[in-house]
């Protein structure tokens, strides 16, 4: 394997690992604020208990997000120096604004949010919680501006092979940014909704019958039920936007080889790039034309339009885009089913959590991580669908590569993968450990980390 492919795998592995945790923290910050405000409004202990449990998950996720994020900010220099040399005039300010307006805000106020509860007045603690949530959302905003610009670049001109900004408004509000931002924020909300529902279901199955678990289970399912239709709508609109700006990506997502009318919606197939056709295709007649052009005879672009005269392929690799797209949609449909079924069952005759059959509660536990699956699949669709471009129409991925020997990249890649695997395992098992501990009614507060106090806490546990 050469440096290019290894660096791509390494970048993909790093960002995939990173995105797992921001996806949780972005929405969980707001959820914690909500719990806290509900407690303030009702004085009901259950909200405070929910806050106490989920702030631990938040703190853990945040730490994972921070360390993997720091890794990300070095990746551009170590592996993709060409990126900054070519589009640094645009990417640079966006990243700088992210650091200045988001990272410092969340990092500084995180300390107060986590450990300041008894040290600062209530309003300041609530404000800190708000600012952390706001900061994570700002992070998402700036990085998605940059990422969207890489897909639909605007507001710049090339001089001597280097991009120069001409219109910052056009750069920030580039054509795909609103869609990508909305879709990502909803994805974060859904990830958290199902995480909360799934972990609460787990605690319920461990015979935890506290008011807190009832509330968070209902909260997670309701949030999921509210967000998933919005997400499907936003996803559809995002797709239409992509059709306009990156038709080759949509063609790969749909697995459509020829530009034609009455294109079916392919449910399953194995795209064969050698033969340039699909095998084992199962589709709904006219489906794709209907979705993308809103009429059965609508003409949908096909992959064969993106092959140059001399036979060079100018569209992304089809199979990975095609399959990851279907994984995302499939997960979305599963989310729709579970959240709506859950809400309906709980509402029926006011049965509450008891109205949900055990089988379904069991199924909700793995659904806790469905948001991760859909998010990763979505990003793979998006990013691989942009290849061979790094910045659509401006520079290819190949042009950005560093002059680092392949074995060196291979060894760091191996090291990263090992660390990530261990940390991921530790993260998931600690979440279940904390849930199990809470379900057994053990004191929810974390061991305080100090001399004498530890001794007391150990005695108490």
């Amino acid at each position, binding site marked *: 394997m050469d440096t290019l492919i290894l660096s791509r795998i390494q970048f993909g592995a790093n960002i995939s690992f990173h995105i797992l945790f921001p996806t949780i923290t972005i929405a969980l910050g707001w959820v914690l604020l909500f719990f806290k405000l509900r407690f303030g409004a009702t004085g009901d202990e259950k909200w405070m208990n929910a806050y106490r449990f989920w702030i631990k998950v938040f703190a853990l996720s945040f730490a994972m997000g921070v360390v993997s994020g720091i890794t990300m900010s070095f990746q551009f220099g170590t592996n993709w120096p060409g990126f900054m*040399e070519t589009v640094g005039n645009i990417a640079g300010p966006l*990243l700088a604004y992210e650091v200045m307006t988001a990272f410092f805000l969340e990092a500084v106020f995180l300390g107060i949010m986590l450990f*300041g509860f008894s040290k600062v007045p209530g309003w300041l603690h609530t404000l800190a919680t708000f600012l952390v949530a706001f900061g994570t959302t700002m992070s998402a905003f700036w990085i998605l501006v940059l990422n969207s610009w890489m897909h639909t670049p605007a507001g710049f001109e090339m001089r001597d092979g280097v991009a120069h900004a001409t219109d910052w408004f056009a750069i920030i509000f580039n054509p795909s940014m609103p869609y990508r931002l909305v879709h990502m924020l909803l994805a974060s909300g859904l990830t958290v909704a199902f995480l909360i529902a799934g972990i609460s279901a787990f605690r319920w199955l461990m015979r935890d019958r506290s008011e807190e678990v009832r509330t968070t289970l209902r909260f997670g399912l309701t949030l999921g039920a509210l967000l998933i239709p919005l997400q499907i709508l936003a996803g559809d609109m995002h797709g239409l936007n992509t059709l306009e700006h990156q038709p080759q990506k949509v063609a790969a997502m749909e697995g459509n080889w020829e530009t034609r009318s009455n294109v079916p919606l392919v449910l399953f197939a194995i795209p064969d790039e050698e033969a340039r056709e699909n095998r084992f295709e199962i589709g709904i007649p006219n489906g794709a034309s209907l979705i993308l052009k809103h009429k059965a005879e609508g003409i949908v672009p096909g992959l064969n339009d993106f092959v140059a005269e001399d036979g060079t392929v100018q569209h992304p690799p089809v199979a990975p885009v095609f399959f990851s797209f279907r994984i995302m949609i499939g997960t979305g449909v599963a989310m729709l089913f579970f959240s709506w079924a859950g809400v309906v069952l709980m509402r029926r005759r006011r049965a509450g959590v008891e109205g949900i059959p055990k089988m379904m509660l069991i199924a909700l536990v793995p659904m806790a991580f469905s948001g991760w699956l859909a998010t990763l699949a979505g990003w793979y669709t998006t990013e691989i669908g942009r290849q061979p471009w790094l910045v659509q129409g401006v520079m290819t991925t190949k042009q950005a590569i560093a002059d680092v020997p392949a074995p060196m990249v291979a060894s760091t890649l191996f090291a990263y993968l090992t660390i990530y695997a261990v*940390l991921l395992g530790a993260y998931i098992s600690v979440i279940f450990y904390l849930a199990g501990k809470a379900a057994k009614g053990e004191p929810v507060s974390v061991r305080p980390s100090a*001399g004498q106090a530890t001794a007391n806490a150990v005695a108490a546990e």
Partner: protein
Amino acid sequence: MELFGDPAQWLPLTFAALMGLSILIYVVLDGFDLGVGVLFPLAEKAEQDRMVASIGPFWDANETWLVLAIGILLVAFPTAHGTILTALYLPVTLMLMGLILRGVAFEFRVKAPDKWKPLWDKSFWIGSLITSLTQGYMLGMYIMGLEVTLFTQAFAAITAVFLTVAYSFIGATWLILKTEGALQLKAVKWAKGGIWGVVLGLGAVSITSPFVSDRIFDKWFSVPEIFLLAPLPLFSGLIVALLWYALRHLPTKNDSWAWFPFVATISVFVLGFFGMAYSFYPYVVPEQLTIYEAASAPESLFIILIGTLFVLPMILGYTALAYTVFRGKATALSYE
């Protein structure tokens, strides 16, 4: 823009100054929390918890200064950014792994099942150690112009050790400030041991730098520079002497002066940093690329500068707020 003269002149300089400032703040702030991590195995179990408690609310924000510094390098001097980071590919990766290991340990050591705690403690220590060593190594390589020879690597290995000692030293002075009782006594002892390392390290870097680079030699030892520069080593020497004196008398009965070693160490770091910055100016990649050659387009720098002027004071403001909220002796960390 023309108001201040040619932006192609003053913008790169401004950004070099901003980058220097964030590196300096980073070295001081993450320096002390990395140092606490390096000293970690020297303490008893209960003391270790207290040590972590003294840095728990701060470490994340401290590391953000590294992100800012690397961000400015990336946005203001893109070509230098690529050159430096690809030349330092392996140490950078190692450092990142160190940062990962220690960063997650803060959380895992108190949340994972008890039987895993020793493992996460180890990861906290090793992570801090790797981070400090690799940063010192990179500093050495940078001083040597990023050239890889046996000699430069040997030099970098020495700076690696010295920077780690320097971090442990500032970490110990932080603990003197933030703790009391037996732990504070230990911290004084550690600082007494570390101070010799700091003196040796400062000496070694100051003596070697001018001899590996003729340019630096000229910058130091010509008239009038030598007189303008003389205060740097003189003041450093004076502060170190005061430190040495203070450490022999600490802790005092009513804990007065506990702040002194930390503050004095910061000023030594600042002086050393200025000496370094002076020697390297105008290069961003030593002997290869000046800040003027490497700078991005003025329009882009300008738009960042405007934001910085507004945001940097705010950042400093709420950083100060955080340090005020958690002032005084470190207490148990709790979410309640």
